[in-house]
């Protein structure tokens, strides 16, 4: 097997033109990942710029209302730029700087990764271009403006379904055309090696903190950690340091869209099969001839036909469970958390909240659930209002 495998998944299925760039990145990452100076700079930026550690908040009203397990929220929504995406962006940008790159390109779905990338690029004085599906540009117009405000150039992608998968394809195409001075800050635990491993390592700060905070607050580990999964970066970040703790249930919530028995879904592990795409072997939503499916979810950030290879592996070996949550359930959870705890979650994170609501009441009162609130929901308010029939535009 080639490098970067998780069971049968992963690998480096990319054009020859990019292979040396991938080797260069691998070399740089291996050189710096255990470098004390690099890690000090990373930690300083996490603390001083991103606002880490993020809080582990006891959701008392939600716990009482559901009447079962004790619920904690990992508040990644409180990070600078409003989501977990900045954890990975800071790491990759520090690496890119050391590699002598001066220009950054990135894909974005909901705009959270694009905004995080544009933000750190502004802070580090690097040129930044973001590729975003045209449909997503319309769904998330405010984020497009934020990226421009931060000095990034936003390219609407019109090819294919004009959503996240096409933005990823287009960013890879752009990288193939200009490699020398450019680093692609891939936003999820997907794509060719070393991205799935590197992005996971940068995101694993989430579970490292959860573990410390949980031991401090409760003196024990949680019974379940729940996170939403598109490509899977916030989920792997929340799971990683618990993988060896076999008693901790790890639950990934995929976007079922209008339901896993419809074509309007993005639930990869629930409806897809193994394939090769976007540089990796993993599960993908596809037809019988391997044509990638035009997936759908109300959440632009989960609207992706694949899943990171490490999740595919955790699924294969049964270490993590992957469930499907519909648009309706996610919207209800979005409203519920806003009303009950005064926290408006990203519609992506609301998928995890929805599943926690489903299982919490059947769990014992001394059991503990941690929900990763991967992002804040301000960006989604207009879309959810429209979903509820209100004529609200940003």
């Amino acid at each position, binding site marked *: 097997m080639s490098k970067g495998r998780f069971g049968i998944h992963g*690998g480096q*299925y*990319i054009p020859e*033109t990019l292979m*040396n760039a991938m080797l260069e990145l691998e070399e740089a990452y291996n050189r710096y990942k255990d470098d004390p100076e690099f890690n000090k700079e990373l930690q300083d930026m996490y603390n001083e710029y991103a606002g880490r550690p993020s809080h582990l908040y006891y959701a008392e009203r939600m716990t009482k209302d559901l009447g079962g397990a004790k619920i904690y929220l990992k508040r990644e929504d409180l990070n600078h730029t409003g989501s977990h995406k900045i954890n990975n962006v800071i790491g990759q940008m520090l690496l890119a700087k050391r590699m002598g790159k001066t220009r950054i390109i990135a894909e974005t779905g909901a705009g959270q990764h694009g905004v995080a990338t544009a933000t750190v690029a502004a802070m580090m004085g690097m040129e930044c271009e973001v590729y975003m599906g045209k449909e997503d540009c319309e769904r998330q117009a405010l984020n497009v403006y934020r990226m421009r405000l931060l000095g990034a150039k936003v390219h609407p992608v019109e090819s294919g379904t004009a959503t996240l998968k096409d933005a990823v394809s287009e960013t890879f195409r752009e990288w*193939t055309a200009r490699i020398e001075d450019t680093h692609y800050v891939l936003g999820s635990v997907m794509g060719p090696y070393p991205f799935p491993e590197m992005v996971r390592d940068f995101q694993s700060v989430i579970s490292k903190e959860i573990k410390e905070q949980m031991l401090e607050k409760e003196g024990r580990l949680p019974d379940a950690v729940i996170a939403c999964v598109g490509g899977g970066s916030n989920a792997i970040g929340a799971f990683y340091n618990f993988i060896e703790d076999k008693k901790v249930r790890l639950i990934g919530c995929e976007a079922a869209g209008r339901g896993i028995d419809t074509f309007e879904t993005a639930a990869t592990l629930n409806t897809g099969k193994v394939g*090769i795409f976007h540089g990796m072997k993993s599960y993908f939503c596809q037809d019988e*001839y*391997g044509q*990638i499916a035009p997936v759908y979810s109300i959440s632009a950030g989960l609207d992706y036909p694949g899943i990171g290879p490490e999740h595919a592996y955790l699924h294969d070996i049964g270490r993590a469970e992957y469930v499907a949550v519909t648009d309706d359930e996610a919207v209800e959870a979005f409203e519920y958390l806003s009303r009950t705890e005064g926290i408006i979650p990203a519609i992506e994170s609301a998928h995890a909240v929805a599943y926690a609501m489903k299982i919490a009441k059947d769990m014992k009162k001394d059991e503990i659930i941690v929900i990763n609130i991967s992002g804040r929901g301000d960006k989604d308010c207009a879309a959810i209002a429209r979903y509820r029939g209100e004529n609200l535009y940003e």
Partner: protein
Amino acid sequence: MSNIYKAFENGKAFIPFITCGDPTLETTKQAVMEMEKAGADLIELGIPFSDPTAEGPVIQEANIRALKNKVTTDDVFDMVKELRKTVKIPMVFMTYANVIFSYGAEKFMKNCKEVGIDGMILPDIPFEEKKEFNQMCEKYGLALISMIAPTSEERIGMIAKEANGFVYCVSSLGVTGVRTNITTDIGAMVKKVKEQKDIPCAVGFGISTPEQAKKMAQYADGVIVGSAIVKFCAAYGENAPMEIGKYVKEMKDAVS
């Protein structure tokens, strides 16, 4: 051993690419026959894929047109079987890993052999991942064609040593599509290949005019043209085969 070597026995080779089923499989069939008549030495048949990440807009759109017509991998096999009744020159598939993987590598290669395909070009299978398919390719006598790029540098030796059929030299950075200028030192790339193995080298990506083709043919054993041909399908639809035939003749004359 595949029949690909025959493509390089008639002077410098001209290798046209066409996306199968753009706009119909009947058009593709006619176009292939016209291309053979016009002097094409080997034909690259693109099996459409929904997300062709190595292609520029021209071939991306061809894939969309073909898939809109519900062209499947099985339909393409049937078309090649029909074509093989008359077409003598080597034909290879150009497609993406998932098309083969989802079909089943063994079943795919077996069908290739049966219908008379000689090899395949898979832009998302680099040297490091070729074991995904090369065992099955070897079993059915098909060449898994290696690509080298302007960024390959010291990788060229390793790739060339294990290359089969011919080596596809990618002329420029970026995706497929017409370019006005090709600045890569193709001669140096080809030289590095030949130092390792006596295997034909064909240059592709960005070539569209007879002048460019003539220039590239000085450094390599063949010239590959894709987007410029696909543009005829976009412009003329079902009437494209005649136009493509005229163009191929002009290009073959230029490289000869």
